[in-house]
């Protein structure tokens, strides 16, 4: 088995040391990787599946698959991007099982540009998230993103919530960079449109 290569002149990162140790059978090292990324994987899984039990299963299955296949990880991408790819595939598989009547695919490019054209142009109140309690806000955001096609919300969560770059998102989803950008734009615009009714400035709101 080849060692994971680092760029010339760069010392191995803490992560690549952990990955290398885990590949040699050090479960403690793998546990450190689990601790590092379990929250992210759970968040991604729940955004895609919209179901907590499925998200729990996805986290377990994704990490187990990663452990079993560490030998195939070449270190050309970050471990996290590789893990996300496994987790997204697991999450989409669970979603398909729950919704066999609907096609669920990351390649799904369901609608035309017009679907994302802004219909309501309304200014929002300043700090709109402060209009609601934490739990009300979570409820609003959860319901709103749930209405997006899975391929859109997957791109949005990786890019805008988890902060992966466009290139990393494309690699994790096996999509082209233009396809990621197109879905991201439409996801952002559709979410904005749907959030209007909760956050728009009301009559009599005189704050700047």
């Amino acid at each position, binding site marked *: 088995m080849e060692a994971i290569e680092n760029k010339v002149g760069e010392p191995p990162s803490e992560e690549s040391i952990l990955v290398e140790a885990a590949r040699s059978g050090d479960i403690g090292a793998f546990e450190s990787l689990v601790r590092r990324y379990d929250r992210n994987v759970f968040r991604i899984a729940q955004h895609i599946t919209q179901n907590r039990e499925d998200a729990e299963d996805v986290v377990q299955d994704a990490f187990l698959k990663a452990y079993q296949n560490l030998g195939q990880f070449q270190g050309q991408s970050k471990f996290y991007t590789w893990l996300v790819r496994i987790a997204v595939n697991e999450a989409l598989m669970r979603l398909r099982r729950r919704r066999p009547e609907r096609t669920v695919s990351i390649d799904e490019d369901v609608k035309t540009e017009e679907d994302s054209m802004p219909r309501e142009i309304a200014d929002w109140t300043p700090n709109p998230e402060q209009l609601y309690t934490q739990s009300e806000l*979570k409820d609003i955001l959860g319901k709103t993103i749930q209405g997006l096609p899975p391929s859109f919300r997957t791109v949005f969560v990786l890019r805008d919530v988890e902060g992966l770059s466009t290139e990393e998102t494309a690699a994790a989803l096996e999509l082209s960079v233009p396809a990621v950008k197109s879905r991201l734009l439409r996801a952002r615009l559709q979410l904005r449109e749907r959030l209007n009714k909760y956050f728009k400035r009301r009559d009599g709101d005189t704050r700047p």
Partner: protein
Amino acid sequence: MKCSDFLKELTDYLDDTMDSQTKAELEEHLQWCHNCYVVCNTTKSTIEIYRGSKLYELPDELRSRIHSAIIAKCQCHKNGKESAAPEQVPLGQEKPSK
């Protein structure tokens, strides 16, 4: 620049991944087009609200349960592999024939 052209570039503009000339053209459009100004600002807020929302946090109790399950499964996989692996012979030593 038309509003539809502005919208096409919105993602790159919000991510600040565009050349300075296109950026200047978009900002010029924003100076006089109130609708695009509002769409741009509210889309930016949409991203910020989701990013800061703590939506779908993993509770500690569930986290520790998931950890135990993952590590137990990995251990099981490792033990299975070890017991299935052929007997290791140190380098330079021939396995004695029976």
